[in-house]
């Protein structure tokens, strides 16, 4: 895929996808794959953990997908983890290496990982919600000494739906990260936790004033996790959630992603919980 534009506005057009190709497609679960994309020529701007891009499949369409890769990777790879739930996401989930895709972005707000040095990080992921948290986790591990405790709680409906299982196994062997993996429906041979992510979260003994919590998953999951953290006296402003809404432009021009006062593509997807909480309480807002 190549890009040609009139010189008048060659670089500035945020509507124009940049050409990338699929370098690798790792199956994570039956419906989810991690795609490693590489630029045909110019890469997009560097992304921050929590940001998303708009991914275009020729002749199918374009969707917003959070970046799931290492924000400091210097090999030019752009990594997304995609669950096939619609026409475009299914095409991406099954994209063969070599497939050309278009990329716009990165867009949106990032996880705030700049709290006071020594902060404890608590990351709670539900299902595909682990993907947008992975860049934050990789960042924290890369700068391990900057943080106090790092806790990762990952939940899935069933063991077969867990993402990044090799990485989770490697993390569980480390003694500088606390990992809890839990599933709703354990299968034969499952020896991990069973139940909702709120259970291991509730069991944590936290030092609330030095805790930063990053939550990503279905909205009810994030609300219950936030409520558990608030019960533990974690300051509301230190809780961040990642929101999902319909997005067509990614740049605050199309209106679709509104949630109350927020344009989720511009003011989100990562939003401090005190901003999100009153909005998530209202049905169909």
């Amino acid at each position, binding site marked *: 895929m190549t890009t040609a534009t009139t010189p008048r506005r060659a670089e500035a057009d945020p509507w124009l996808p940049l050409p990338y190709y699929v370098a690798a497609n790792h199956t994570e679960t039956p419906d989810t794959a991690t795609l490693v994309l590489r630029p045909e020529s110019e890469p997009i701007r560097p992304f921050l953990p929590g940001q998303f891009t708009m991914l275009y499949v020729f002749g199918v369409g374009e969707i917003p997908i959070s970046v799931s890769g290492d924000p400091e990777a210097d090999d030019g790879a752009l990594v997304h983890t995609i669950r096939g739930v619609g026409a475009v996401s299914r095409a991406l989930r099954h994209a063969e290496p070599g497939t050309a895709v278009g990329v716009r972005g990165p867009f949106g707000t990032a996880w705030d990982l700049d709290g006071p040095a020594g902060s404890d990080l608590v990351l709670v992921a539900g299902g595909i919600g682990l993907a947008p948290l992975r860049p934050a986790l990789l960042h924290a591990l890369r700068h391990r000494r900057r943080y106090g405790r790092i806790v990762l709680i990952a939940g899935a409906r069933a063991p077969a739906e867990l993402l990044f299982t090799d990485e989770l196994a490697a993390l569980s062997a480390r003694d500088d990260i606390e990992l809890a993996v839990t599933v709703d429906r354990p299968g034969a041979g499952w020896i991990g936790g069973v139940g909702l992510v709120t259970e291991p979260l509730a069991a944590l003994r936290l030092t609330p004033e030095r805790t930063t919590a990053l939550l990503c998953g279905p909205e009810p999951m994030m609300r219950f996790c936030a409520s558990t953290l608030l019960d533990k006296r974690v300051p509301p402003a230190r809780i961040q959630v990642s929101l999902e809404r319909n997005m067509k432009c990614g740049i605050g021009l199309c*209106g679709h992603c509104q949630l109350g006062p927020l344009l989720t593509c511009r003011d989100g997807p990562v939003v401090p919980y005190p901003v999100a909480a009153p909005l998530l309480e209202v049905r*169909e807002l």
Partner: protein
Amino acid sequence: MAWLTRDGLDRLVEVLRERGYRVVGPTVRDGAIVLDELSSARELPAGWGVEVGPGHYRLRRRADDAVFAHSAGSQSWKRFLHPSRAKLWSAERDEAGFRVSTEEPEPVRYAFLGVRGCDLAAIGVLDRVLDHGGRYHDRRAGIFIVAVNCTEPGGVCFCASMGCGPGVGAGHDLALTERADGFVVEIGSERGAEVLAAVPTRPAAPDQVEAARAAVDAAADRMGRAMPAADLPDVLTASRESDHWTDVASRCLMCANCTMVCPTCFCTTTEDVTDLTGDHAQRWERWASCFELDYSYIHGGEVRTSGASRYRQWLTHKLGTWHDQFGTSGCVGCGRCIAWCPAGIDLTAEMAALVEQRKGAGDDHRDDTAPG
């Protein structure tokens, strides 16, 4: 201030056309006043007024031959600044995958003739929302604006209560006030002065200027409606769970007319199309509406399925959260959404009902805490 005769207005249109502008202004077509390209000022709706109410719009003959004595029709200048359909790019399949290209024809240089206070404010709102460089900027940059101070508000107008009229605000090149025998002209920009210098005018007499100003001032008191004077963003935030949304939804047809005729509603969607060979794809941007069910679709379903939630989104955005997002109200008081609503829903009345309901809620609250 200058005085321009009716013949002078003809000449103004000619001068603009000679300078390469495509002059767009009001003209009568299909029983309505529409905005279209004018080849001469003779095509303006001389002697036509309008009779407007909720769900109602009719042309009516006037006793005079005034050309700007009609309130807003269904179209707004949004049609030209933010077209209902625009191609963003095309892509062709090739050996490397596909190749994306854009073709960007020089934007048309329009001169807008007859932009009222409400609509000039609406252009300002669109600028705030959409002007981040790019296509909108290119289209907007070359536009020459001949504004018109309004002396003939209609039955659904409420610009005075929105602070957008009847006199025009900043942002025009020339501003006219129509009088029985000509126009008082005010210069708004150097470009405006330069164009006006090519048109025969004479200085306006002080009494002409005074009479024009008085006519505009008087128009403020003849608005058919008014937006309630309350902190609308606050009321709307407090009204998220109000039962009034269900009441509006029982009347609303979800037709999206209000968003189409609104001069500031900017929402769009993208549409990817391919031809039958599958080798050629295009992406188009077209107007969308928060009343459409799939506007809020994310996998698993739409966020806003009920009519109540969609009307709440529209009104709350227009009068409330627009302030958070863009630092201004999204409403300019033109009244189009009232006139072109097939159910005659009037946002000023719905807003007034919400304000009343909040007052009631405040009273209840006081009752709850009152002793005895």
